[in-house]
């Protein structure tokens, strides 16, 4: 009886622990962020939606009063005969009216072209810009309750989004590393395998780099391939392994190297175990390799280009404007001079907001991923540089 009770308690504890782990895992954090944003969208829509209709009515009254004033003070006082004086005074009156329009648009009136500014999707984008600290400012709260709620929403939402960024960035970084390793293996580029081998070797053995440079190329590769795998190759079969690696490092442009395990199955038996071990070696190694900075930068540039293409199609922006918008958004600057769905008033506006928010959420995570990878690479470079410097100094002195 007590044992069962204790088991129940431990089971409950396990449940709670797994629930917490799930909540703070990647899926849970994504769901949490999305739910928080949706809740914010509903809240801001409820708060701000009411005051918006009032503002539109205000503007119509303003126009009426301007026409009335023109009639009363201009047309009736100056007669039809004095054209220049009349035009002069109309011009002055129109200028003040123009100033009023500028002020009204600044306060969030958009000319009555779209029916509702605070629709659900735009409120969603608004809450997303708050918690990501982009802050376009194309929509901003006008009521005092909206302002207060925005402040608290931001204070609560920003740590949540940071959590999302760190979690998802880490996950994406590990995935990207796997993909990078696999793709490089697929192409069978010898530079990659050599770099990997050199990387492993520098961790394992503190052999100097100058020594390895002095050697001839084939000899070095041969020795490299000999040195690294010995901790997992059974010592009784070194020769097929070396032959296999030499065949890999040889230039074979049309060999089917996309799937090493498939190739391993089709090969004779004595090649089977090295191929399998090679694959497992790479998957094991995938987390310890570092992705070069240039790949990360190229990836981010590609993502921005992709975004500029999408928004160019969608919003009729030219290429530079699209790229500018994507960069300003992803670096969380967010000027708000270009916002999707701001200029073209179409029924697609709702979907365009949603597409924009998806693009932003994914893009922020990708930026975090790239930072993760680049940080690793920089630390790696730094360590290498330090070692090299130390070696040089020792050489000199």
């Amino acid at each position, binding site marked *: 009886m007590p044992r069962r009770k*204790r088991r129940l308690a431990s089971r409950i504890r396990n449940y709670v622990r797994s629930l917490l782990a799930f909540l703070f895992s990647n899926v849970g954090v994504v769901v949490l962020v999305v739910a928080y944003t949706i809740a914010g969208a509903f809240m801001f829509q409820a708060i701000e939606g009411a005051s918006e209709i009032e503002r539109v009515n205000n503007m119509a009254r303003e*126009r009426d009063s301007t026409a009335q004033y023109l009639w009363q003070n201009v047309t009736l006082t100056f007669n039809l005969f004095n054209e220049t004086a009349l035009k002069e005074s109309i*011009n002055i009156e129109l200028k003040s*009216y123009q100033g009023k329009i500028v002020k009204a648009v600044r306060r969030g009136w958009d000319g009555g072209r779209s029916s509702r500014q605070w629709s659900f999707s735009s409120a969603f984008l608004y809450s997303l810009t708050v918690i990501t600290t982009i802050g376009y*400012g194309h929509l*901003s709260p006008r009521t005092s309750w909206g302002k207060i709620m925005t402040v608290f929403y931001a*204070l609560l939402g920003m740590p949540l989004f940071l959590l999302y960024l760190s979690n998802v960035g880490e996950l994406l970084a590990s995935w990207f590393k796997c993909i990078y390793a696999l793709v490089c293996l697929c192409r069978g580029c010898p530079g990659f395998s050599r770099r990997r081998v050199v990387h492993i070797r520098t961790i394992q053995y503190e052999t100097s780099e100058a020594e390895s440079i002095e050697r001839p190329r084939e000899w070095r590769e041969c020795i490299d391939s000999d040195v690294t795998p010995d901790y997992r190759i059974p010592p009784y079969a070194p020769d097929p392994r070396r032959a296999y690696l030499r065949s890999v490092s040889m230039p074979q442009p049309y060999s089917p190297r996309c799937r090493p395990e498939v190739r391993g199955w089709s090969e004779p038996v004595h090649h089977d175990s090295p191929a399998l071990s090679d694959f497992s070696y790479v998957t094991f190694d995938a987390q310890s390799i570092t992705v070069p900075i240039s790949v990360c930068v190229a990836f981010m540039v590609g993502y921005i280009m992709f975004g500029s293409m999408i928004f160019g199609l969608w919003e009729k922006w030219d290429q530079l404007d699209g790229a500018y918008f994507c960069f300003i958004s992803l670096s*969380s*600057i967010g000027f708000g001079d270009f916002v999707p769905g701001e200029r073209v008033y179409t029924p697609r506006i709702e979907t365009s907001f949603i597409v924009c928010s998806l693009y932003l959420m994914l893009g922020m995570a990708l930026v975090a991923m790239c930072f993760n990878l680049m940080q690793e690479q920089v630390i790696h470079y730094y360590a290498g540089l330090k070692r090299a410097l130390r070696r040089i100094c020792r050489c000199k002195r």
Partner: protein
Amino acid sequence: MERHYNHSSIHGSYRSRDSTSTTESDPREKIKDCLRKFIAFMFTQVGVGALVVCYAILGAASFMHIEKDSPDEQLENVHQWRQTCVEELWNITTKYNVLNHSAWMLNSNSVLKVFQNNITGAIHLGYNGRASEDIWSFPAALMYSLSVFTMIGYGNVVPKTVWGKIGTIAYACFGIPIYVLYFCNMGKVLAKTFKWLYITAHECSRRDDTLLEDGEIQPIKRKITVPSTACLWVISFYILTGTIMFGAWEKWNYLDSTYFCVISLCKIGFGDFVPGANIADSAEGSHLKLVINFIYVLLGMGLVAMCYNLMCEDVRVKVRELRQDLKNCLDDITLKITVCMNDTKYYHQKQTRNIK
């Protein structure tokens, strides 16, 4: 991280002193030493702060240069629209006489509506009633470059030309790392200073108690971390200062200026409230305000970094304590349950024995 940094800096200074004392005659060593000192200074707080300010000034000058002579077609357009509107109103007045009030009203209203729509479109394209020379004054450009590399992005001033956009992208690429360096450095230094202040105050207030209790210095043994509430107090005091300052200058009400301060310090930067962006305001007053806003935001970012630093530490300690507490609590509960179960078991056994 911090410890590592300390260690390396101490090590570096020690080494530099050593090298100067041993090989004073060698000019190459001297140059090397100077270079080392210079780099160390550049990465200290003063150096990084100066770097940030210099970078902002450089950016302001270049953006001003790029954007100042951009032809503003919106200004021309607005002028054109107003002229046509006047013309049409004149036509209406000649067509319908002074006597036909309602028809005149109807027609002029429709003309005004066209005018209004045109202007709204122009404003969405970036027209705000000022020529580009007025917009891109030096303080405004300074504020613009600040808003780029701190990632605030107010958006009240935006580049219109192609080269301005490209320059903004490049400027952000280099500026954001510099700013992050400033953020980290400033946060570290301010956190250290604040911690030192807090601990001295803590000890001063605590000494009397310990003297009264007994001579032992009990509380110093526990590692003192600055509580989060202290950080929050500092930040809210800073925001309050900003609130009163901007409220007095810009004639905003207190809610609006608090909102502005929080939105700025959180790097959201909607740009619906920006100091010195009032159209009706004179140019001279707005320049000073922009410079002061620049200093306010830059200092505030440092304070936020400090609080982030301190609160991270505090939260880490709190989480550890909480975990320990939870563990103890769970252990207690399991112990109690087992004891209870054992009691009932004894009771059952006793009962069965009694029945037997």
